[in-house]
Each structure stands twice: as C-alpha cells, then as structure tokens.
C-alpha cells in the first residue's frame, strides 16, 4: 500500500514548494517577456515590408490562430490518446499495444513538415484541419505512453482490494485505475502541449496560419525583427501552455495524492 502511494506521488511533481513558486512566477515572467518583445518590435521604424506583418491586427490574429491550433491538437490528443492508452491496458487487448505504440512512434519520428505536405498531397486540401491533424499525430506519443504507464503502475493490491469490494471492471477503471493514473496522463499531456505549440509553427505551410508566418517571413527576408517577434511569442505560448499543464497537474490530480 505505501509503495503504491509513493510511486503515484512521484508522478505528481506539483507538490514540491519549488514547483508551487514556479507556478506563480512562470506566467508573470512570460507576460513580461511577451510584452517586452511586442513593445520592442512595434516601437521602431519599420519598413513597409515589415509593416505587412508587424501590425496589431495581424499579430493578434496569428496568436489567436496559434492558440486555436494548439487547442484543437490538445483536444484530439486527449480524446484519442487516453482511450487508446486505456484500451491497450485491458487484459484482452494487450496484443494491440505494440501496434498503437508503433503508430505513435512513427508519428513522432516522422518529420512534421513531411506529414503536413503528405496530408496535403493525399487530400488535395488545405486549411485548419490539414494543419492540425499531422501535429496531433506528432504530439500523440507522450499522452499515449504516459496513460499506459499510469495504468500499468497501479498496484495490484489496490486492484484486488477493489475487486474484493465487488467492483466491476468498469468501476475499477473509473474509481481506481484512472484516478491513480491522472498525474501521469497530465505529465504526458504537458509534454504534448509544449510539442504542439512548437510544431504548430509549421501549420502555416498548409494555410492554417499561426506564428510560423512571422518566423518564416523573417527568415526568408533576413528580417530579424519579424523573426524574433514570431519566435519569442511562440516560446512564450509554449511556456504558458506548460504553465497551464502544471496548473492542471496541481488541481485536477486526485486530492488524496496531493
């Protein structure tokens, strides 16, 4: 019993004092850095070419597009990764595990830019979902493998206790296995989110928009202001997502394990 509690606690890092302080400081720092880079970029003599991108409306749109892509990727990753992880840990379906882990591995190993172009060539379509789907596949692995890990680490004796109280398999999953796996799943989701924000800078290649437009324009035109603005804002978004993931780990994890 005590071993199980210790293992589960290790999966919920938000309990250390240092982590609590970080949860408070991180968003403040991110907002300061983001405000500073925006001020730095807007407060200079911009050429007509730079103004095509560096204007309030455009930058706000790109940040919004980037957030939407990230939100959609998160939703897909949770809705696909967690059920899939649960499925392959069921006693009857364990044989499927190498298959899905393999697919998720391929998704993460394949270059995201290749997946994007490939999906365009296969569907002859562009737009939001063509930009989202490859990034979801790319970010799936951490959630899938942490769900599997989270459920696998649940102590046999807890399961036996549940069964002994007359719980059905479904009740056991819902009341014992999943709650104990939540810290692991959230840690995986946090990794997935940060990956998704970074990779979403490639979504613009298939007309899905996002901060990648600033980065690519700046890179191609050797325009460091646009390049730095796009990169730093993307980094800030990634840190913000990491922070949200940390918050979720703190508040969504089972109270008894906090």
């Amino acid at each position, binding site marked *: 019993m005590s071993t199980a509690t210790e293992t589960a606690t290790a999966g919920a890092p938000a309990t250390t004092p240092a982590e609590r302080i970080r949860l408070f400081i991180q968003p403040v720092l991110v907002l300061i850095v983001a405000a500073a880079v925006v001020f730095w970029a807007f407060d200079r003599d911009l050429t007509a*070419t730079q103004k095509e991108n560096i204007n309030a409306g455009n930058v706000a749109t790109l940040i919004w597009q980037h957030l939407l892509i990230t939100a959609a990727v998160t939703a897909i990753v949770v809705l696909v990764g967690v059920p899939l992880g649960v499925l392959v840990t069921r006693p009857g379906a364990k044989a499927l595990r190498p298959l899905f882990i393999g697919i998720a591995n391929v998704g993460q190993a394949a270059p995201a830019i290749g997946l994007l172009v490939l999906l365009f*060539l296969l569907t002859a379509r*562009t737009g939001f979902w063509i930009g989202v789907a490859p990034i979801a596949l790319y970010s799936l692995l951490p959630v899938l493998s942490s769900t599997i890990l989270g459920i696998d680490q649940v102590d046999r004796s807890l399961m036996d206790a549940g069964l002994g109280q007359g719980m059905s398999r479904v009740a056991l999953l819902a009341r014992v296995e999943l709650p104990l796996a939540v810290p692991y799943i959230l840690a995986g989701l946090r990794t997935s989110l940060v990956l998704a924000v970074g990779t979403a800078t490639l979504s*613009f290649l*298939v007309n899905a928009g996002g901060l990648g437009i600033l980065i*690519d324009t700046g890179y191609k035109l050797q325009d460091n202001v646009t390049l730095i603005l796009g990169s730093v804002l993307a980094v800030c978004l990634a840190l913000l997502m990491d922070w949200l993931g940390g918050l979720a780990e703190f508040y969504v994890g089972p109270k008894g394990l906090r």
Partner: protein
Amino acid sequence: MSPRRAVAVLAALTLLLTACGLGSGSTVPLQVGPGSIKPTPGLEGVKITVGSKEYTEQVILGYILEYTLAAAGADVRDLTGIVGSRSTRGAQLSGQVDVAYEFTGNAWINYLGHEKPIGDTRKQFEAVRDEDLARNGMVWLEPGPMDDTYALAASKRTVERTGVRTLSEYAALVQRDPAAARTCVDTEFRARQDGFPGMAAAYGFDPARAVTPILQVGIIYQATADGTQCDFGEVFTTDGRIAALDLAVLTDDKQFFAHYNPSVTMKQSFFDAHPEIAEVTAPVTAALTNDVVIELNKQVDVEGRDPSVVARDWMVSRGFVTAR
C-alpha cells in the same frame, strides 16, 4: 635528413598540395569540345573558377557557363551549388569564384539594398551594372532574355472560366468578385513590396479584399493546378512545374514585377585581364529564353535528370559545343 624522414615530408607536402587543389573546386563534370565556340587565344589554359547558387536553375546556368569557357580552352574549376545568394556573392567578392550568372533584380534588391524595382528591363540592367561597378567593382556583361521573376499563374480551366489572362484583368476580378480569385501566396511574396502588396498598389486593387491562403511555395504549384484550394497562385516564371502541370502565366501588362535577367558577372580586375569572356559568353547568354530554361528546369526537377547532363545536351543541340 634521413631518407625515411624525406619520404614523410614529401607525403605531407603532397597531401597539402592536393588539399589546396580540392579547395578551389572540382573539375568540370563532363568533357566538351569546341563547336560554334572556338578556342580563344586569351583564354586558353587560364584557370577560371565558375560558381553558382544551389537551386536547379542556378546549377544549370553554372554548368552552361563552365562548358562555354571550357570549349574556349580555359582550365575551368567547378564551384556550382554554393548555398544561398549571400554566400555565392561573398565567394565572388573575395575572389574564390571568378565568374557566375547573377540576376539583375536580385542584385538590385538584395545586394544593393533597393526596396523598389525598376519597371523597364533595360533600365534595370543599366542601373545594376553602373551601381555595382561603382560600389563593389563588379562587372555585368550583357544580360540574357530569360526573366526568372514572380508571376501569378492559373490552370487552363481557370483561365477559360474567368477569362483572366493579364494582371489587369485579375485586378478587375478581385474587385468584382474576390471569392472567385482566391490566390495562393507564400509568406515572402505576401510581405515583399516587389511582391503582392506592391502588385496590388500598381494594379489598383485593395489587397485586403483579395482572398490569399498562405501555403508553402512548393505546394502552390500543385494547389493551383488542382484549382480546388486556389484559383491563382504565385509562381516563379521559369519553374519547370509550369510546363509539367500545364499552368498559364498571367501577363504582367503593367511591367510591375522586378526583372531577374541573367548576366555573367565578375570582378573588374578579372574582366580587365580576360576581356575575351564577354565575346565568348554573349551568344550563349542571348540564347537563354524563359522557354529554354523552363524546359531545362523541367528535365531536372520533374524528370530527375542530372543537371550537368541536361546543360551539356542543350549546348550540344544548339551547336555551341560538341560532346566528347
């Protein structure tokens, strides 16, 4: 010095010498003999290093220049495929590369720092030639007719449906019915003043009215040919995919887009030592039209042939050189 030690020193020296040889480029990939280009007294045995940027068209132009000079009797070194405009230009300014084909508009905007191009081909060339000579001591020979510049293209079906063949007609369509003129662009074209915003100003339409999906450059050709995602697309006028995907290029009837005509460029000191280069390369440069270059690009990019062979075969077919 003991014999063994002498051998070691000799071996080290040989290594050093071969290393130097490698440093100045490799030999020309294919041997050619004289055709209409004859051995030229001032060039025979002269060591000339030819450079080019890394993309297909520049590599083909680099090989064409190499075969031209080799047929004239020069000892040509091959430095084609330098990555990026700036590196190629740097190699030329520092004397690692003696001659290279450069595009007028590229030098005007990227090297000489102008934001707006000059509309007239001839005036653009003269402006580049004069300014680059005065500021950097670079000589520009007479340019060729090919013009590798931005353009809008559409599938033949879209042209028939909309009746748009020129950019003026395109501008009218954008004003009348923006939804029928979805135009795929890449990030660079969308921002550049010699790209979409400038074009909108020159042709008098509101760029904010136009529907402009942003795609990766390579995807735009296929998307334009499909016609499902965009009706028009930004292209480069000499890209082989224009021929392969049967796209129609809209006429730039107000001559807005910058002109990118190829010209053989070299440092003043090199030109003064070997002025014959101008005469030898002139007929070849003059034969470089858009149709020729689209076809050569297509053979490499679409059919997967080797650029050095494509360049050689074209020169042989024109009688400039003979194959060996």
